[in-house]
């Protein structure tokens, strides 16, 4: 069936289309060119409406062990937000850590058609994929977490060559079905087990003698040489520590031009000036990002209210546990291979630190010049639940709204920030870059985030509204692979998205050393570690989409 969307105002940065009136044709889940005979089966009148590709959340914790811990630990999060079943949708609950089904519905209702889980521990990847497999409508995928795993650290400690590390990274990505590689507090999760409670960029792991800088170089090199489109996804050292600014800059500059994505950079942009010994470093951070074209960043904006922080960074979560609200928290080792920390948190607008965090995030958005290299995230749920994205978009697009809220925050924090003097307002085109075209390019999705002929028909249709929060909360229509899943902000059909992966090539000889390692140290055998395609495809509800690698991969 050929469907025509007639007369919408198209914002498609992937094709440099900025607010042009054009028709879009959909057939068999793809965007197609106009039929030569002018015949179509169904027409939807979208004249005057704003059309963008489906939005892509490139960093959102929607699956895996730590989300489940958050769910288990926070019955109050669920009791306060209960969704009953309908004829169409299953029941669910949860505000900060929603159930899988509810997460999928809520993303779709906001016009999001893909979300990427940024911290899949290889040994837990099966469970993460099962959870994401239960997240309806949206496409998903994940970044596999490396850098604190003993196998890599052993290879590095024995000066293993880069080729072997590349093989290990590619092997792990392939068998855990990842689309990228993430490193969390490089080596810090491992160092925590040797009783180190902080780890600077050039500080050695007590046991392995390896520094976070070494790990970043090795992994960033591997990702580049394998041709993986998504740059190394880095959650840096010393998250949340006043004065971590310099180390963040050092991390970005020290990678020597290799592609690197700095995630939730707001949490890594703190100085030590002023009476509170806590100040904004966003100007310096933005300057470095602007200068280094190899660096991309997502912000990890905080918004005020109750949420839960779930991170693989057990070292920093352990340090932050006195601030847990309500007062309960978990830090744990996972399968002797990594760790995680989960603690509920309430961001308060009358707290100096929280108010300044809010300002630092917005300053970063407004001072990074290139919207292709900065991404809209709240590090769901760590800064705020993803359902607050429309509010965040309004903060970026509406200076008056932003300054009105700013003027109600902790007065000393207001004095410490120059946010009020930033006049920039994001345009719809820039929002489309950040949340669609740019995100697709960053993650490495060749067929998403654009309205090109041949792309997957993930399309959102909004009614233009000066109140951008209202506009982005409730799209008129959302199409997922050509199926109308949302009408007037409500789900009308439930579909199941695909899982995006990359399959970098590797030399299978790596299994010669991996097999005995699994036999001796791991909780499962190597054969069981490997997730087969069938497990994700399930009974046909799920599917796997292999995205292309960059040309020129070394292997």
């Amino acid at each position, binding site marked *: 069936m050929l469907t025509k969307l007639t007369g919408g105002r198209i914002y498609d940065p992937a094709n440099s289309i900025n607010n042009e009136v054009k028709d879009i044709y959909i057939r068999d889940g793809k965007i197609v060119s106009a039929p030569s005979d002018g015949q179509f089966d169904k027409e939807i009148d979208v004249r005057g409406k704003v059309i963008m590709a489906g939005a892509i959340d490139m960093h959102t914790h929607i699956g895996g062990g730590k989300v489940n811990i958050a769910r288990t630990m926070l*019955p109050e999060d669920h*009791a306060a937000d209960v969704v009953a079943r309908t004829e169409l949708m299953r029941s669910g609950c949860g505000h900060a850590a929603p159930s899988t089904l509810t997460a999928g519905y809520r993303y779709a209702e906001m016009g999001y058609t893909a979300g990427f889980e940024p911290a899949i521990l290889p040994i837990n990847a099966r469970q993460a994929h099962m959870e994401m497999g239960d997240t309806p409508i949206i496409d998903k995928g994940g970044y596999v977490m490396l850098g604190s795993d003993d196998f890599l650290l052993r290879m590095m400690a024995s000066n293993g060559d880069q080729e072997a590390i590349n093989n290990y990274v590619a092997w792990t990505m392939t068998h855990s079905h990842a689309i990228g590689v993430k490193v969390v507090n490089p080596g810090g999760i491992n160092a925590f087990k040797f009783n180190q409670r902080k780890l600077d960029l050039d500080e050695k792991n007590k046991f392995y003698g390896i520094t976070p800088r070494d790990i970043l170089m090795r992994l960033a090199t591997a990702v580049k040489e394998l041709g993986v489109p998504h740059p190394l996804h880095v959650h840096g050292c010393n998250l949340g520590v006043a004065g971590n600014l310099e180390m963040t800059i050092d991390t970005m500059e020290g990678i020597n031009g290799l592609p690197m994505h700095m995630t939730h950079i707001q949490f890594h942009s703190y100085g030590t000036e002023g009476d509170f010994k806590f100040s904004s470093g966003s100007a310096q951070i933005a300057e470095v990002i602007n200068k280094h074209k190899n660096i991309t960043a997502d912000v990890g904006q905080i918004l005020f209210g109750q949420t839960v922080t779930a991170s693989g960074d057990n070292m920093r979560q352990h340090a932050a546990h006195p601030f847990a609200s309500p007062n309960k928290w978990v830090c744990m080792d996972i399968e002797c291979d990594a760790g995680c920390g989960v603690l509920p948190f309430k961001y308060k607008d009358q707290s100096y630190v929280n108010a300044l965090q809010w300002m630092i995030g917005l300053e970063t958005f407004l001072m990074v010049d290139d919207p292709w290299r900065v991404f809209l995230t709240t590090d769901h749920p760590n800064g705020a639940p993803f359902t607050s994205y429309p509010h965040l978009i309004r903060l970026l697009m509406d200076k008056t709204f932003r300054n009105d809220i700013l003027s109600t925050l902790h007065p000393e924090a207001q004095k410490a920030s120059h946010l009020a003097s930033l006049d920039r307002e994001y345009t719809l085109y820039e929002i489309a870059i950040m949340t669609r075209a740019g995100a697709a390019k960053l993650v490495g999705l060749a067929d998403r985030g654009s309205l090109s002929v041949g792309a997957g028909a993930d399309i959102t249709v909004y009614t233009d509204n000066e109140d951008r929060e209202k506009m982005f909360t409730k799209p008129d229509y959302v199409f997922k692979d050509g199926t109308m899943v949302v009408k007037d902000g409500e789900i009308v059909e439930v579909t199941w998205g695909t899982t995006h992966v990359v399959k970098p090539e590797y030399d299978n000889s790596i299994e010669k050393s991996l097999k005995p390692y699994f036999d001796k140290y791991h909780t499962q055998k190597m054969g069981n570690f490997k997730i087969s395609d069938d497990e994700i495809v399930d009974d046909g509800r799920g599917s796997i989409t292999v995205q292309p690698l960059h040309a020129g991969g070394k292997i």
Partner: protein
Amino acid sequence: MSALTFTLTTSAKQRIDCSPLTTDLLADKSLADIAAIELVIGNSSERVDSLFELSGDDATDIKFVNSTDKLDFIGRNMTSGKISIEGNVGGYLGLFLEGAEIEVTGDTGIYTACEMKSGQIKINGNAGDFVGGARPGYKNGMTGGTVIVTGNTGDRTGDHMRRGTILIEGNAGDYCAGRMISGTIAVLGDVGAHLGYGMKRGTVLLTQTPSTGLGANFNDCGSHTLAFLPLLFNSFKKLDSKFASVDSFSRVQRYAGDVGGIGMGEILVKI
């Protein structure tokens, strides 16, 4: 005006959520409206009049007759008036109760007076586990009010209890006052094992040393004459309970714990 009475006419096979039947929610409703309320039973729902026979008209004074242990959530969130129950009740009796009164002639299930804020619950029978406790995963149990149990209580009485008073005329089960934050629990009978496990603050008052003894996590602080005890007993005088007629005493052996934590809880045993 006579009490609004719900007489259970069916032998319920599945649990019935009675939380809509409180003085607050039924005020200003006609009998026909009340009869049409849908109650959740198991995984479906049924009208009130298909389960109960209704009579009376005073919605500030509610009675349940023929009650069984399948009736859950009676008196949830109730802030005024009284509910009297003839028979047993199920779980979560008086959940979040605030300022109202509940009296039961039989036994209650788990989580009686769970996270109760104020008011009074009297049970003329035995109570189940977690009397005055917090819901699973929550940090604070009852934060005020009085619970009187003429019989025995199950395990984990006063789990996470934050404030208020639990008076037990019979025996208390294991882990009594476990994880207790503050408040008062008094027991006239015996107490099970692990009394005060994880107790932070608060007072447990006993008339006899527990038959299983006290755990190593409580330190003996010697015998004391505590002037507040006669005042406490005096405050019991107005209650419809054996505690009203207990001979006041002020000499007690004091034990402090749980020393595995902050150790500011106390167990006082009459000498």
